[in-house]
């Protein structure tokens, strides 16, 4: 286990800067999720921590040791890749024990560690199979087994669930989290899925265009987004941004879909879509040119074309500076 520190970390490809002065402190044992839209630089940052990508400026330390110029093998890390990167010509057992074998571990030690990991991940029956003979979820587990077998200081996950179907993703999410609780190894996890980030992270780093927009616990980010980008990115459906003029305010007002009530004196929205989801009802509508989405944790009798009066719950509104988009 180890702490990880990023100080003014930069990355450029020729003249194009893709990571701008990133500062992150990850304490020992924490599960940190880097989240952001495609192309925001989160995977590049993870690869820089891994040593697979050279850094242009700044400093990366793992357990107090600057690792800028160290090869990945010397950083004592393990990484799980998006496409698992299992060696197709080796059995599950060989895949899991491969790094130990190349680090000179004895056969007994390799067998012991592989069996320990296989036991944790329920892979015992699959040890002699090749990756091609496994399902997506099983491959994912083997990739995790390969990572934990070496007992590294730091786990790095690069969108490991994006190749799985929705149901399996939820199952594997739980498994990864349980594994972290058990091993308490510092983990950096990259995803573009904010639900994954919210459910798994001790802390979330929201990135956009190579910059860190906000770092905080899932609840902090949800309750107190630092700016319009974070407010819009965290939460599903996304937060509504209502021009202040509609609510007699000078700022942009952010209201989460679940923070509306149907009451007199609210925004008069014309319903454009009603989505009943059993326990919830999602209603989309328009007020002037502004789109509004509201979610009610009950059934609402509304039809397309109806006019509803939606009133933001006063204690739950967020206000953002119209010029800079920062939280007020």
């Amino acid at each position, binding site marked *: 286990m180890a702490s990880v520190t990023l100080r003014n970390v930069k990355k450029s490809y020729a003249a194009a800067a893709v990571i701008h002065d990133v500062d992150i402190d990850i304490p020992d044992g924490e599960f940190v999720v880097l989240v952001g839209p495609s192309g925001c630089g989160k995977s590049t940052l993870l690869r820089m921590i891994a040593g697979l990508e050279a850094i242009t400026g700044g400093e990366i330390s793992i357990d107090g040791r600057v690792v800028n110029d160290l090869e990945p093998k010397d950083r004592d*890390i393990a990484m799980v*890749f998006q496409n698992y990167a299992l060696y197709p010509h080796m059995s599950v057992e060989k895949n899991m024990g491969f790094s130990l074998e190349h*680090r000179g571990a004895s056969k007994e030690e390799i067998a012991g560690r592989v069996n320990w990991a296989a036991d944790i991940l329920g892979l015992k029956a699959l040890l002699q199979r090749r990756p091609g003979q496994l399902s997506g979820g099983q491959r994912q587990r083997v990739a995790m087994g390969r990572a934990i077998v070496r007992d590294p200081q730091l786990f790095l996950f690069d969108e490991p669930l994006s190749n799985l179907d929705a149901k399996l993703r939820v199952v594997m999410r739980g498994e990864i989290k349980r594994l972290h609780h058990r091993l308490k190894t510092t983990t950096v996890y990259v995803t573009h899925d904010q639900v994954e980030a919210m459910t798994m992270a001790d802390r979330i780093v929201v990135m956009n265009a190579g910059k860190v927009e906000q770092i905080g616990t899932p609840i902090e980010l949800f309750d107190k987004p630092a700016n319009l980008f974070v407010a819009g990115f965290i939460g599903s459906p996304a937060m509504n941004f209502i021009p202040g003029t509609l609510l007699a305010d000078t700022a942009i007002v952010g209201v989460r879909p679940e923070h509306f009530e149907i009451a007199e004196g609210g925004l008069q929205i014309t319903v454009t879509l009603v989505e009943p989801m059993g326990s919830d009802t999602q209603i989309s509508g328009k007020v002037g040119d502004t789109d509004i989405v509201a979610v009610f944790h009950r059934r609402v009798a509304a039809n397309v074309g109806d006019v509803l009066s939606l009133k933001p719950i006063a204690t739950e509104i967020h206000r953002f500076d119209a010029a800079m988009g920062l939280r007020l």
Partner: protein
Amino acid sequence: MRTDLSPRIKLALYGLLCTLAIPFVFPTWWMVTSSVKPISQIFAFPPEIIPSSFDWSTYADVFRLQPFAQQYWNSCYIAAIVTIGTMAVSSPAGYAFARIKFPGANLLFMVVLLGLLIPSEVTIVPLFQIFLKWGMINTHWPLILIPIFGAPSVFATFVMRQFFIALPVELEEAARVDGLSRFKIFWTIALPLAKPALAAVAIFTFLHSWNLYLEPIVFLTSPEKFTLPQALTQYVDVYQGPMWNIQLAAATLTALPVLIVFIFAQRQFIEGLAHTGLKG
């Protein structure tokens, strides 16, 4: 082939395919059947598709008139060494061009590829002078060294490079995290996965060496040093006319390993080409 076709259409399709196959199969059939015919029957009109008599003595003559077993061995061992040597040169070269980023890599690769455009007839005289200086005339060295460092190896390097480019880079990154050096990544991860491409290279190279004709006739002078394509031309009568039936018997024996290689390795061969993007 689609399985929902009616039997009549299937029959028609098979008939068409068989008809189209005739121009390709006929020369082989002609070679094999003519090797057991007396010379007079080979040129008989109308031609005999199925020989009326079988004269197997032509096969004994193949070995009686020339040191054919020695020549067969020469071809076998030269082709084997050339195949192994070419794979040994082209796989690391292809890997380097696919994976190692260095200034001018693409330009250098283009220059290497340009070697394929130079006909061997153009370089044969300077090569002769070089091997003469090295005292290698009438030895098998030119037939080994020229393909390993010449056009077949360039082509093999191209095939290997295309394969390695298509190999997911994450496999190598995982190996880097696992602690492997560049060479070990190549040796334990990339190369074992390149078996289909290596098989394609092996078949191409083996056939190229097996069929090599210009170089043997330039560099070899003693019959016991000859390789098979050169040996085939030596079955002539006292007037230098070809002894067709004996020549075709020798040609049949020469074609045998090629047929065997194709029958047993055709799947690997096609897979290899498919992997390297050379086919569809």
